[in-house]
């Protein structure tokens, strides 16, 4: 379990993280969303023990990460641009990882080679961007980490590679209860794999949710009445968005599904529809509710 408390980090005069709190359960995949410059990479690097936070604390399984070798042996960070020593082949990089990470599994490494079908004697730098990304996953997964921290792992990859990498990752989460934190500026890229989502904006979380909660919690309602809509109809719920199209009201509300149904039925509407929401729509409305326009925060 990752437990982050009130983390602050300043670069020069710019405060990049302003009191971030975060809890991530073991075996979950956490999607860290935010626009460029929101502080995602910094937060990930702090989590990985690369940067040291100015204030606050980070504990992974009750252990601080920074300069803690046994903890770091169980954690791998893959940056947005994977790094390899210059002129190293995949095999040489693998030897390096094998020595550094005690849980390294040569068997896994060879097994993954069959799946990825990359030449282990080729120099990594001669690979394409997508292949390099695959190599970084290949090496990381062979080291059998308990925690995998990924910065923009799907950025600029084609659909096939993206799919392949996601499968590899999900596989480990399912089999070994690996914990994954994955950052992205694009919700659609991660919505299919994450079970938790957090949106970071200007160094602070403006939203943190479990995805299942989200989906059962927010409802898009179309409703029409013969007369005016009863004033007190939605008093029991939070209204995130509201618009009128003639006599039809389009309302986004937060609340228990059954309760919403019940309340509206009682008011005797002419028309009543509850429509499904895409995850993106949910975010758009959620964030409107807290005063942000999603276009400014996520692509």
């Amino acid at each position, binding site marked *: 379990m990752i437990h982050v408390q009130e983390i602050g980090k300043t670069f020069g005069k710019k405060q990049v993280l302003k009191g971030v709190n975060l809890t991530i359960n073991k075996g979950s995949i956490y999607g860290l969303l935010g626009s460029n410059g929101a502080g995602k990479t910094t937060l990930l690097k702090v989590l990985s*023990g690369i*940067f040291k936070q100015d204030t606050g604390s980070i504990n992974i399984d009750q252990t601080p990460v920074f300069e803690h070798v046994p903890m*770091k042996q169980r954690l791998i960070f893959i940056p947005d641009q994977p790094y390899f020593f210059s002129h190293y082949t995949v095999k040489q990089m693998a030897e390096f990882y094998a*020595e550094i990470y005690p849980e390294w599994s040569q068997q896994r490494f060879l097994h993954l080679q069959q799946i990825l079908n990359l030449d282990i004697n080729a120099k990594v730098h001669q690979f394409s961007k997508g292949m390099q990304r695959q190599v970084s996953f290949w090496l990381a997964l062979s080291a059998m980490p308990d925690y995998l921290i990924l910065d923009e792992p799907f950025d600029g990859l084609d659909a096939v590679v993206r799919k392949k990498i996601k499968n590899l990752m999900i596989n480990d989460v399912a089999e070994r209860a690996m914990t994954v934190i994955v950052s992205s500026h694009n919700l659609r890229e991660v919505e299919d794999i994450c079970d938790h989502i957090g949106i970071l904006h200007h160094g602070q979380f403006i939203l943190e949710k479990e995805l299942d909660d989200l989906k059962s919690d927010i409802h898009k309602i179309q409703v029409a009445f013969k007369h005016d809509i009863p004033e007190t109809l939605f008093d029991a719920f939070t209204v995130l968005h509201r618009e009128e199209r003639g006599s039809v009201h389009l309302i986004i509300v937060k609340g228990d599904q059954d309760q919403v149904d019940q309340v509206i039925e009682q008011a005797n509407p002419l028309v009543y529809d509850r429509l499904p929401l895409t995850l993106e729509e949910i975010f758009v409305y959620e964030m409107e509710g807290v005063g942000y326009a999603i276009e400014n925060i996520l692509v």
Partner: protein
Amino acid sequence: MRSKTSWYNHEMMKQNFRQVGWISLVYFVSILLAVVLNVLMKLDVEDSYFEIYYDQPIFQFSEVIQVLLLFAAPVFMAMFILRYLHQKDASDFIHSLPITRSKLFWQQVGFGLVALWLPIVLNGILLGIIYNFLDVSQFFTINHLFYWLSLTIILLSFVFSVSIVIGMITGISIIQGIFTYIFLFFPVGFTTLVIFNLNFGMIGIPESYFIDDRIAHFSPITDLGNLFMFDKAPTFKLVAYIALTVILLLFALLLYKKRPVEAASQAIAFKKLKPIFIYSFTFCFTLVGGFYFGYIQQSYQWIIIGYIIFSLIGYFISQVIVQKSWRVFTTWREYGYFMIGFTCLIMVILFDLTGFESRIPKTENIESVYVIDDMYGFVEREQLYGEAQGFNTLDDIEVVQKLHQELIDQAGRGHFLLHDHSGLTLRYQLKNGKTFVREYYITGNQADYPLLYNLMQTETYKKYSEPIFRIDEASAYRISFTNYDYKELVISEREQVVELINRYREDRLNLPSQEGGFMTDMEIHLPNQENIYLNLTPEYEGVISWLEQEGLYNQAMITIDDVEKVIFAEFTEDYYNYSDQELFEHVLPEQDKMTITDDDQLEVILNYLYEEYDEAEYMVAIYLKGYTYPYVFFSESETVPSFVYDYFN
């Protein structure tokens, strides 16, 4: 399975080898060619002429290459071994690995050191093999080899550790390289700048006392000449370098632990150092401005202008470095602070708020005092012969204090820049064991300072400032008299030598301070010491009478019997354009020359003429019998005999 808890990472070492192995290789091959092969080549050349300049001859082989590599190899090594700190992606990667910073640090530094030592050790072994199988005794001994090996290793490690510290402070490799050299040179350069600039402000600051000799020891770059001397490099210096290396490395480790990883590619890794860097860089540049304009223009206004211009340049450069941008014209606040601070500093110094300039030690605190007109010679004499007695009677001390006050009153800022000045140092030995030193610049003749002139005629002054009083007469083994290669007399009988020295001493005490005599030089030969050169003129009655008494006078001195003629002429610039012979025989018209052959007049000339360089008014050409070339020297109107003066006026 391999042990996971080993103290080093095999794979990291492999990576290091790939990254910096070439430096070792280049270094090894260079030394192999420059030194080892050079020795073999010299051996091959029969009766090759090889002179040992240093006591440490191995440094003589391709010295320039050795010195360049001595300072280039460790800096390159440090730059590449810490390269991972200065590249953002590499830095993130390495620091995400489960290795602690201390372990990383010692692995990298250890690898770098070994990679520097190996080329030298291997070449040392090769030289050792050559030493064992071939006769290289004319080049070096086994001690020389060990000294070469250890000194090279010590200096390599020291320069490397300086560079490692700089590498921790900065996030840019090129800055690491440049600033390593700046810091290596810094102690010497900064002291010189400060002393030079203080000379404007703090009248009386003893420049030569600080700078001469000592300052070069502050940096291995300027001290290299001394270090190469096998005998002269004191062990404590080598031990100091080793200790400094260890301290620097520990300091670097401390910095590394505090260093934020995100500092990669930033000019200065630590936030707190940025203002310190900006202010000190600007300060140094300001001093350079003072130095430059002071040296070139030698005027007060220009020095101030120099301060302003160079402080601006320094401030600009430091901001450009820190911000890594040319567009730094918006930040002037720190410059403002700097100028306020610098102005305050100037005020403190100019208005002498510390009382530095007006301070004269109180009589009751003074043990003794020296008045020194050649500090360099004085220090040298002290090193050679030990301490001599200074002025210690109440009367003398009071005279020195009066002189001191006079010097303070007439001293002007910038006097030290004048070309015709001479330094005068007052060195007080205080009763509390401390030394109080002031140096002033006087222009013109010492005779213009009656107090000084009188002090210089005292027995005390002569005894501590003339080497003749300092030597052990019993150990002198020879005295030779030479004059213009015309005659030579050598006295080597011990009793006669001692007698002559004692007579010369008596004469010295009776005569005014030494003036430029001419023709006859005395040289006293001493074992294991430098010889002493003395003038001999007819005024040295004791010596002269002894020579006459022993029947040696004609052998020692030039007499009228040796002189064919003497020609006087007024000084002309033509002197610089012609050879002496040409000038006197062909260039100068007859009416401008006075030729003397009369014995009485020659006698006067030989006995009373003095050499005077400062205000040459007359040229004197002495023609010795059997010589075609004249011996030419200068004199001024006051010292030429009256018949010469009358002739020309």
